[in-house]
């Protein structure tokens, strides 16, 4: 899958090519489980203080959407925590992933005040992972299957995961397109006014954290931001193309990781940066050292992760 043209993912790739992405999908499952738990943390903290969402200001998305009582809301939260924990561990992986997505989506739509871009991104990635066989590796399910001498069927997992990877690749470019396009169309952003004003306001915070004064002097110049803003916007808009084109895919992944690490260092974005980095597993094959990349239809052992039967 990594070597073919941009539209190849929508055609019928070779199973061997997809198998390398199955492991990536399984790693994503585990990572998204952890990030789901992190996403639930502020809600759980309030619940432990005895505060339900209906006790404070909230705005229903739809008039017909159910408004939960305190007991139901607390039950929903703990259900979400349990599903996310099981999903992380990879126990009943597909079921718990679907449940986690379903419960978090239901929770998300309880109030417009819950909306954040990173939460939207989380739900999107959970859906992508749920569509594939995300328990074939790096999971309690896979370990238990090996214990029972019924190892994971990577062949079947590849067949079921090709669709998930295709959907994932089509959807994960939207955050970069949406963000880059909105900034491109905004004269204040394109001209550097937004980033300049932001840096001016938070200069004292950066210097308190150890940023050198001379660096901040440079970053507080309007002409620097006139160039910096354009570079940021064009970098963001280039990411979808870098990822989709096979020749530039590795560069695209490197740009994505660097881009998100920079954002994480300079802004408060909750889990968005980690989600963006985790999503790069959709683009590059994961070749776990103990697994040979190719298997056959018949019973050959594939390292410690089982055989394709």
């Amino acid at each position: 899958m990594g070597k073919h043209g941009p539209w190849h993912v929508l055609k019928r790739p070779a199973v061997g090519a997809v198998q390398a992405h199955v492991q990536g999908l399984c790693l994503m499952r585990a990572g998204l489980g952890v990030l789901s738990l992190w996403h639930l943390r502020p809600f759980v903290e309030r619940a432990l203080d005895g505060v339900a969402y209906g006790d404070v200001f909230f705005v229903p998305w739809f008039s017909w959407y159910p408004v939960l009582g305190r007991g139901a809301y607390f039950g929903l939260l703990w259900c979400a925590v349990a599903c996310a924990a099981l999903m992380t561990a990879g126990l009943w992986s597909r079921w718990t992933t679907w449940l986690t997505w379903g419960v978090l989506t239901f929770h998300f739509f309880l109030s417009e005040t819950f909306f954040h871009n990173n939460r939207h991104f989380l739900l999107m990635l959970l859906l992508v992972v749920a569509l594939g066989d995300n328990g074939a590796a790096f999971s309690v399910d896979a370990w238990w299957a090996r214990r029972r001498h019924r190892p994971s069927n990577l062949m079947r997992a590849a067949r079921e995961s090709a669709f998930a990877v295709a959907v994932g690749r089509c959807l994960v470019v939207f955050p970069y397109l949406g963000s880059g396009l909105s900034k491109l169309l905004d004269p204040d952003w394109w001209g550097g006014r937004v980033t300049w004003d932001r840096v001016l306001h938070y200069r004292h915070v950066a210097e308190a954290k150890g940023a050198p004064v001379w660096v901040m002097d440079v970053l507080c110049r309007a002409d620097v931001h006139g160039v910096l803003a354009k570079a940021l916007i064009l970098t963001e808009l280039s990411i979808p193309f870098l990822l989709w084109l096979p020749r530039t895919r590795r560069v695209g992944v490197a740009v994505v990781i660097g881009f998100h690490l920079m954002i994480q260092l300079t802004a408060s974005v909750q889990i968005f940066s980690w989600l963006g980095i985790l999503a790069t597993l959709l683009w590059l094959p994961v070749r776990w050292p103990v697994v040979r990349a190719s298997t056959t239809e018949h019973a050959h052992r594939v390292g410690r992760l089982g055989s394709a039967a």
Partner: protein
Amino acid sequence: MTTGRILVPAFSSWQWGLLVGLVGLQAVMLVRAYGDAHAHFGYQPFNESSFWQARVERVDARGRAHSLEAGWFGYRWDDLVRDRVQRPFRWRRAQHGIRSTLVFMREALDWVAMHTPRDQHTRFLQATVTYRRNGGEVQRTRLQSIARK
């Protein structure tokens, strides 16, 4: 037989439908977000460097305005409003843009007005929001809640 020559089954009709549907839905949301004060589902983070603060008051039957900053009748604004427009009394950044902040402030005034039964004296709540968008001129607007019964 190597798996390199074995192709995955072609996507079924429902899979194609789901793929096209999801991509189409996200594309529509992306475009729709330009007309939405909150830019929901449009992936438009950090679109502004806007800062704001508000003087939130309750107006009694005699038309006198009383600030809510120190609380009123056992209520505190920050206990009742914990998202989006919490801590309005100090200058702070508009996380999702000033338009979204103003809409949520209006809705928060309504919600607080309707969920403070111990307050038997207030006719309505109001907020005078002072804000500055992308380092521009300071602007001011007044928002008012629905009338309390």
